[in-house]
């Protein structure tokens, strides 16, 4: 209760915004440095939280709770007070994601050196976005979660729409509408829960929803009703994740947004969907989730295969990566749907690892685009000769993405499928096809770019400087770290996921 570490973490980027306000907007270098340095503070704080997190305790940590809004609804039954609090706290899932957010943000800020104009506005929005992302993972309250979730929409809209490529505005609108709809559905679900349970606190809701079925029936929360809520949640978060029929906006964003924003978007924003699915879907409605687990797994497999197939025929490397994200999110779904500890762990691993890998790959794409002005696979070829280091990182990223043992991707895919094989072997078997496909399209794209004959227009390209590939190095470090020492994550996740998959509710 007394720690304000999480608040400090969430709002620390605000400091950067304030400083930026007083920097003249023509002063490019200062702005960029301030922008970068401002992300270091949350990074440091996130590390503090990560280190300070006690892996042996299942309970919430660093919790903060202050009374915030009171609508003063006369309680219909005593005990419910309908107060909304400012609730923060971390469990195993969120602590990992917080750190991931901080890391990717810092690296994306570093990647932002390529931004060409309007640096001041860019970095202010960027930092605002970081506040939103951090807030989402640290909230312990539906309203707060939702608010931070929406907060991410506005800066992202601007960052895409202003600093993106040709079709940027269309992409920005598409992003806004899809996510707006998703979040709107989310809001309805949240408020229904609030009106039923009288609280928005995760713990309180879990407790409310884990009452006996007869009791819930009496509170007008029958089984069908809960199932309906869960499906609504699935749709809402499925937009974000994205689950296949709802994914078209994400492709536009990945192609049109500036590289640092794609890093963040693909690395973190998509993960909010997965996080929400775990936290609310599995956490609040374990019984109902089990009922539709098969369908979710099926969706996961569809995601996996569909993404892989389409990625196979793309010529724009960005599109390849975008579809690969769709495909990889399928693995997250598969892991969650397995409802086993291993599967869920796998899903979380996939969340983290995909966050790192896609950040790395999009960083490299940005780097290449910066040098060559293109991201078409056919235009790039034999890059290894002119940009050996960059090409090397690209290779590493690609291999990590296809799940090479020793890297994070392998662990996550392995565990997710392990989980699914336990519960739905047939689906799992089909799903593994996707892994093979992944290997094929990734290798096709990466190898085309790195090896082969150097295209004439690429001859004069200069290799990236050290500062430019430093972020890639850091990302690679983490990818391999998780790959060889997964315990660093699994220890964190273990208790929380165990509690979840045991059907007891997330944090009780």
């Amino acid at each position, binding site marked *: 209760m007394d720690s304000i570490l999480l608040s400090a973490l969430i709002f620390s980027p605000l400091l950067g915004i304030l400083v930026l306000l007083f920097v003249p907007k023509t002063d490019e270098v200062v702005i960029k440095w301030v922008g970068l340095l401002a992300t270091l503070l949350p990074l440091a704080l996130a590390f503090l939280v990560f280190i300070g997190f006690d892996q042996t305790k299942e309970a919430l940590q660093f919790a903060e709770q202050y009374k915030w*809004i*009171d609508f003063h*609804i006369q309680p219909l039954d005593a005990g419910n007070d309908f107060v909304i609090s400012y609730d923060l706290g971390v469990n195993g899932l969120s602590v990992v994601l917080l750190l991931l957010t901080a890391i990717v943000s810092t690296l994306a800020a570093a990647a932002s050196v390529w931004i060409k104009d309007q640096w001041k506005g860019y970095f202010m929005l960027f930092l605002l976005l970081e506040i939103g992302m951090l807030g989402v993972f640290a909230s312990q309250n539906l309203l707060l979660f939702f608010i931070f979730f929406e*907060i991410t929409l506005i800066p992202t809209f601007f960052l895409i*729409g*202003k600093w993106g490529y040709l079709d940027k505005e269309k992409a920005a609108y598409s992003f806004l*509408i899809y996510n707006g709809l998703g979040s709107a559905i989310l809001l309805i679900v949240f408020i229904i829960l609030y009106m039923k349970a009288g609280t928005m606190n995760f713990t309180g809701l879990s407790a409310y929803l884990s009452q006996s079925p007869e009791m819930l029936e009496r509170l007008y929360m029958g089984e069908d009703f809960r199932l309906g809520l869960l499906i609504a949640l699935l749709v809402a978060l499925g937009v974000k994740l994205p689950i296949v029929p709802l994914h078209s906006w994400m492709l536009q964003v990945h192609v049109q947004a500036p590289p640092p924003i794609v890093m963040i978007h693909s690395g973190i924003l998509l993960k909010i969907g997965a996080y929400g699915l775990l936290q609310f879907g599995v956490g609040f409605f374990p019984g109902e989730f089990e009922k539709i687990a098969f369908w979710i797994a099926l969706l996961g497999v569809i995601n996996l295969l569909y993404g892989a197939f389409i990625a196979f025929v793309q010529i724009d490397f960005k599109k390849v990566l975008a579809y690969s994200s769709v495909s990889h999110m399928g693995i997250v779904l598969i892991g969650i749907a397995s409802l086993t500890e291993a599967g869920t762990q796998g899903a979380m691993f996939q969340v983290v690892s995909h966050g790192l890998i896609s950040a790395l790959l999009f960083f490299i794409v940005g780097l290449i685009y910066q040098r060559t002005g293109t991201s078409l696979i056919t235009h790039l070829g034999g890059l290894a000769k002119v940009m050996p280091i960059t090409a090397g990182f690209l290779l590493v990223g690609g291999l990590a993405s296809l799940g090479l043992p020793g890297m994070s991707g392998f662990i996550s895919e392995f565990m997710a499928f392990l989980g699914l094989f336990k519960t739905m072997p047939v689906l799992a078997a089909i799903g593994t096809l996707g892994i093979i496909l992944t290997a094929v399209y990734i290798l096709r794209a990466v190898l085309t770019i790195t090896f082969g004959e150097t295209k004439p227009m690429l001859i004069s390209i200069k290799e990236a400087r050290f500062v430019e590939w430093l972020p890639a190095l850091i990302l690679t470090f983490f990818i391999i770290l998780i790959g060889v020492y997964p315990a660093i994550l699994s220890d964190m996740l273990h208790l929380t996921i165990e509690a979840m998959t045991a059907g007891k509710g997330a944090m009780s």
Partner: protein
Amino acid sequence: MTTQKLLSFDWGMMAPEFTILIVATLLSLIDLFMPNKASRKPLALFAIAGVVIAIVFATLQIGDPTGSILFDTYRFDAFALAFKLLFLFATGLILLLAMDYKGEKNWQYRGEFFYLILTALLGAMMMASSADLITLFVGLELLSISSYILAGIRKTNLHSNEAAFKYVVNGGIATAITLFGMSYVYGLTGTTNLYSIGEALTDPIVEQNGFLLLIAFVMLFVGLSFKIAAAPFHMWAPDVYQGSPTPITAFLSVVSKTAGFVLILKVFILSFLSGQGGWHTTILLELQPYIAFIAGITMIVGNVIALRQRNIKRMFAYSSIAHAGYVLVPFVSLSLLVFKATWFYLLAYLLMNIGAFAVIQFISERDKSEDITAFSGLYKRSPLVAVMMSLFMISLAGLPFTAGFIGKFGIFMSTLSTGHYVLASVMVTTTVISYVYYFNVLVQMYFRNGVVDRIRPSVGLLLVMVICTVGTLAFGIYPSAALEFFHNGFDMTQLLEK
């Protein structure tokens, strides 16, 4: 009626109204005897001072017990006071806008502008306080007639003329329909007191004449839907909003609309719901689905047509139609939160809408254009104004950390707590649609390039913008400030006590 009886009434309760009345009267006289070629701006300051004094008087009344004068035709309760404060606050801001408005030739010599706003305000305040159909009607017409004139006050401007004429015709039809409904209500109950009507409607004789009651109800509702510009009776709003002077557009979309809602809440809840027949058989509850339908249509029409608008004031007209739909939602749901949700939403709407109109006035006067492209490149021309406008837009769209979000949240709570899932879904979907046109303004301001010159708003406009910005943000981040104020200061059960 004896003199003693009249003197025994506590006229002090009417202090805010009297203040406004006296200030309006004085203003009209001062205006008449001022030299023709003297600027009328000081009158605006005087008017604002009057509004501030009235706010002080009204604030002093917070927490007072219910009182009534003139044989229960005029009531003072928390409901009235809460909405009066909204009216006063909004009018104060609008007067600031009006002060800096540059209308047409010789505009600065037009004093009517200011005191007509005050008389309109007086009408709205009367509506909030009245407990009798006659008083209610007089208040309504005082507001309406003043608004008609205000809409057409730019005499030489064709847009203004046309807007005013359309307003008069539509307003007149609406008035007639409302009155026709009222006459049946009176005929059925033999009284015009809202509370007595509520009781009298439980009389079996009313049930025998159920069709008359139905006609009365429908007519009243139709007439009042005109006033709040709810679909399908919204056709006048875009034309009127576009043609009126910008401060008046703000006035119409905020004060007039709020007054309409006050009327709806008052008449329907007191007369058609509070009868002894209880909560299960009243006509209001029977017809609830139809009202829900109207609310839904209003939201859809407003938001969808707004998408196509190029004129910013017209766009805001449709946006305000949509918001009327939103505010109807808690009325439909009739949960325990109905007053709180409505009041808070209207407060938020007041702040963000007036703020937005301040910016619109600033830009449209500056560029002599009301086209949406006038906003292009605003961020480069005046970053502060652009940021404030963005905030208003975000708040209107209902995104977090703004008062608009909390307002919508309250409405959702109100709706979902009584299980109106469909209505909530319509509201949510249309809200998302509204993102497009609100963000279109942002796109203009940030993504497009327009004229490159530095521009600064005048002090009055800036003040309005800043107040609205602060309010929108403050109530968005810490809504309890307003919610606690409302909860502690205004006991809504006062409305229902006889």
